């Protein structure tokens, strides 16, 4: 049996511990360890995605305990893609942190690796309670990262974030306990079987558990009405952390996709597709409010944080459509929006450093020193996030729009998504023209942008170009992924049919 499936959890865990032990060591040593680790994770994630692309499930039973009794890690197309997206984002965020971050970075690297461990674990696990544990791991790392650097604004938004998520964790536990008390299992594949065969007496409790979990995942995904923590938190975090956090909302979205296609999906009998009627209106409201927030924002980073909410709304709408084409399009758009939002946060930081005391407020200030270069990059990033052709945002959005099935869906989806895009054009052109053109007649005293940092942003933005140039294979992959995810029986058979390795074949058995 290959141990590759657990590598995305073990590598960051060991790196994090190693970096903690070497806290006093020179920054150079810490950075090289950190980079070595993230490059190794990139290799592992690529290997996982290549393996998953063939369409098989890799089931890794921890401690060789057979499912459904032991905890399993499951690699399929969905989890492999999510891990890959995370690691790429982390790689660029770390590049930026090394080149352009404030010096007190002593513990930053180790905490980033603990965050990666939690995120990768959440994507890979096939056990509900284990998902809770990985959520907690990534949350406590994210609390630390959010507060990294200190300052009143960070403490204030951090306090909201921490308290809300602690409440969310309690809800998660209640929901998991309800589902366990009815189904008697925590393995998601086994739970899907039990839910499909639920007796009428069990249905009310199962409904309560499922919808409570939707609240928890919605809180993580920043779905209306639980998104109020996000804009301030992201806007006050340091740039590499804000870029890393672009994956955080996607964890909630991943959990929604996984849980409500597998356990409460099409095959769940009386409880089939329990979340979708709630998701659809909430998604559209999230979309509309996010766009309004972007228009109203008076700081560039706050505006980008609202753009994250807009992308969450778009993705939720794609999930709520609940068909294969829509899910494939959603995942394509998810990868695009994660990377572009990350790039935007980094770019905003570079721009901010060249505006002196005006920082990232969208008001007339001193001219940006490298206005042409940064303005050009900002234009490309804005076009990508709005979804203008020929960049990948356009392809993703168009595919989501096209996958609406009924007339009513088409009406609401097209009108709200297109209106939101229009509002985003207004908001971003207003902030771009204010920052780069409507300036005072002087240039702020600031250093030129660090070459490496600039290169990082350029590389991240070129990923959107790659996503559109290589559109055909990527879209074929995400469509195959959607096909696989929408057929929960494949997942269930793979997990429940997994055989533990017999001792005769285990290495070292000859010595016994």
């Amino acid at each position, binding site marked *: 049996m290959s141990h590759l499936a657990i590598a995305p959890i073990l590598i960051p865990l060991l790196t994090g511990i190693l970096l903690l032990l070497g806290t006093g060591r020179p920054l150079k040593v810490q950075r090289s360890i950190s980079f070595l680790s993230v490059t190794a994770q990139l290799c592992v994630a690529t290997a996982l995605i290549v393996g998953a692309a063939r369409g098989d499930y890799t089931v890794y039973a921890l401690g060789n305990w057979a499912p459904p009794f032991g905890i399993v890690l499951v690699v399929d197309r969905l989890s492999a893609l999510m891990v890959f997206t995370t690691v790429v984002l982390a790689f660029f965020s770390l590049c930026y942190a090394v080149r352009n971050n404030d010096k007190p970075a002593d513990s930053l690297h180790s905490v980033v690796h603990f965050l990666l461990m939690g995120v990768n674990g959440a994507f890979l696990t096939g056990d509900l309670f284990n998902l809770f544990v990985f959520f907690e791991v990534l949350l406590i790392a994210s609390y630390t990262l959010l507060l990294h650097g200190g300052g009143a604004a960070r*403490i204030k938004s*951090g306090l909201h974030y921490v308290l809300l998520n602690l409440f969310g964790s309690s809800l998660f536990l209640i929901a998991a306990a309800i589902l366990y008390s009815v189904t008697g299992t925590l393995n998601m594949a086994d739970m899907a079987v039990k839910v499909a065969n639920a007796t009428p007496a069990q249905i009310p409790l199962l409904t309560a558990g499922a919808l409570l979990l939707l609240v928890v995942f919605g809180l993580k995904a920043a779905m209306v009405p639980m998104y109020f923590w996000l804009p301030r938190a992201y806007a006050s975090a340091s740039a590499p952390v804000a870029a890393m956090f672009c994956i955080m909302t996607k964890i909630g979205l991943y959990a929604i996709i996984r849980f409500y296609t597998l356990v409460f999906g099409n095959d769940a009998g009386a409880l089939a597709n329990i979340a979708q009627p709630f998701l659809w209106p909430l998604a559209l409201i999230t979309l509309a409010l996010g766009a309004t927030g972007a228009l109203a924002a008076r700081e560039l980073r706050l505006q980008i944080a609202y753009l994250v909410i807009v992308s969450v709304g778009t993705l939720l709408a794609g999930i709520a459509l609940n068909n294969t084409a829509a899910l494939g399009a959603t995942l394509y758009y998810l990868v695009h929006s994660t990377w572009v939002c990350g790039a935007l946060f980094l770019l905003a930081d570079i721009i901010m450093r060249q505006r002196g005391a005006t920082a990232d407020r969208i008001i007339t200030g001193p001219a940006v020193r490298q206005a042409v270069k940064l303005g050009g990059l900002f234009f490309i990033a804005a076009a990508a996030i709005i979804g203008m052709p020929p960049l990948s945002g356009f392809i993703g959005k168009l595919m989501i729009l096209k996958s609406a099935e009924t007339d009513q869906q088409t009406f609401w989806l097209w009108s709200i998504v297109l209106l939101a895009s229009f509002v985003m054009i207004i908001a971003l052109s207003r902030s771009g023209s204010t920052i780069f053109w409507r300036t005072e007649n002087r240039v702020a005293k600031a250093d030129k942008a660090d070459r490496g940092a600039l290169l990082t942003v350029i590389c991240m933005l070129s990923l959107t170009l790659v996503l559109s140039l290589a559109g055909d294979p990527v879209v074929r992959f995400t469509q195959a992924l959607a096909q696989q995810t929408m057929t929960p029986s494949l997942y269930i058979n793979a997990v429940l049919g997994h055989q533990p390795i017999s001792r005769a074949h285990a290495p070292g058995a000859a010595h016994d």
Partner: protein
Amino acid sequence: MELLMATVIAVLTSCGVYLLLRGRTFPIILGLTLLTYGVNLFIFVSGRLSPGSSTIIGVGEQYADPIPQALVLTAIVISFAMTAFVLVLALRARAELGNDHVDGRISVEDVNS
């Protein structure tokens, strides 16, 4: 027994939620603590109430479900660590912001920033 358990969980949860809705950090942390107590008891009873039975199969006629007991241990450890973290954070916020309101101080700088 069932009634007693249910009442205890209900009282803990409702007190916790009430305190969570307060505006200052200290009552909120107390509320979170009460809530996690309620949640821990809830997880514990999700394996059914079976007095006087051990969690080992084959020792007696009845056995208790061991999984919720393992889960509740994990939940206790995590909530304990999180409470410690949020306490330190609340103290830090008290020092940085000058008061213990969750929204911090409302001043001119805050409105402009």
